């Protein structure tokens, strides 16, 4: 690890001033991501600003949903009755993430800001446009079994590793951001940026801006939601493909649907085409199969990850059956 300075923030304003003043400054909460990256020399911060003492850890149910503070721990959110009851996909995605020890440390803000697990990104000896813009993408034509089948570019085909982020897409989450000009909200679907020619830019946040909370909105589809994670081993592993499905079914018909995918794109991926197939259609296996086909349309592999296209189709069909209660 390179030498770095450590500073404990006492209030949000001074924490932000410190980070804004220095392009190499980083916030740290649970530390389960940034510390790993520092050990690999991928992150070389000048100063780590510890924000754990800031009052942003509350999980607050309100009339329209639940406001989850950015410093709430993954384990506390997964166990919260309002989340388990109103947003099962969120609880399930959290419990399918990492390990109990990591979930006890890792914060919600850190989870949505985590960096890709692409092995080339994490190996400073390898070219990687995200870590070192302009050096090339080693995964295209390289070891790409875990990489994206949609949403990538000639510059980057990494996948986003968060399970939670996939679930948040399915429950219409909104991110609360504190910036130099004050507070703003960003619909979760617009929070991440596709790599395009600038894979080093991953979210709409400017340097120094901080996620302060994530709001999830109560709805009939959120209350009938389900997470399916397909991975190489049963526990403590990232997704090859994952699906967050939320379905409001009334009198045998789908009134509202959300389908989001993990493990297939550089960002958590909302499958709008699948949702359009579902809306108004009978909640049957045939409808779910058609929606699954729509979800996988436009996907293409890079060799080792070709299998993800068929896997996506099958996983979506199964996740919809789970969420629709016909599994």
């Amino acid at each position, binding site marked *: 690890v390179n030498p770095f300075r450590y500073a404990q923030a006492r209030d949000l304003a001074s924490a932000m001033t410190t980070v804004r003043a220095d392009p190499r400054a980083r916030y740290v909460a649970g530390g389960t991501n940034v510390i790993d990256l520092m050990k690999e020399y991928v992150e070389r911060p000048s100063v780590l600003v510890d924000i754990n003492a800031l009052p942003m850890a509350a999980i607050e149910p309100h009339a329209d949903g639940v406001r989850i503070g950015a410093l709430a721990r993954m384990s506390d959110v997964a166990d919260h009755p309002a989340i388990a009851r109103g947003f099962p996909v969120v609880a399930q995605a959290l419990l399918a993430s990492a*390990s109990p020890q990591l979930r006890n440390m890792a914060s919600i803000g850190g989870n949505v800001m985590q960096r890709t697990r692409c092995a080339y990104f994490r190996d400073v000896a390898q070219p990687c446009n995200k870590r070192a813009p302009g050096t090339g993408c080693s995964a295209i034509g390289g070891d790409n079994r875990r990489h994206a089948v949609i949403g990538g570019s000639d510059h980057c085909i990494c996948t986003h590793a968060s399970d939670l982020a996939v679930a948040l897409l399915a429950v219409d989450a909104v991110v609360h951001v504190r910036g130099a000009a004050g507070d703003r909200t960003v619909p979760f679907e617009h929070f991440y940026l596709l790599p395009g020619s600038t894979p080093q830019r991953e979210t709409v946040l400017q340097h120094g801006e901080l996620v302060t909370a994530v709001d999830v909105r109560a709805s009939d589809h959120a209350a009938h939601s389900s997470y399916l994670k397909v991975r190489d081993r049963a526990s403590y592993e990232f997704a090859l493909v994952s699906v967050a499905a939320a379905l409001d079914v009334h009198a045998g018909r789908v009134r509202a649907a959300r389908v989001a995918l993990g493990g297939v794109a550089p960002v958590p991926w909302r499958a709008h085409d699948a949702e359009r197939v579902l809306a108004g259609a009978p909640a049957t296996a045939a409808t779910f199969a058609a929606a699954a086909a729509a979800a996988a349309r436009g996907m293409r592999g890079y060799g080792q990850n070709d299998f993800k296209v068929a896997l996506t189709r099958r996983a979506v069909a199964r996740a919809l059956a789970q969420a629709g209660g016909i599994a």
Partner: protein
Amino acid sequence: MSAVAVLAEKRPTDEASVREWMSGNICRCGAYPNIVAAVRAAAGVVS
């Protein structure tokens, strides 16, 4: 420590759940059969 937490947090104590809640303790510290049995014995599920 993880085993104590499984009981303190009142997690399910079927074998699969014990293995899952002990997950992340790599190799020998994880969920070998006798570790799972020990957690379940301490929970009073089996003697």
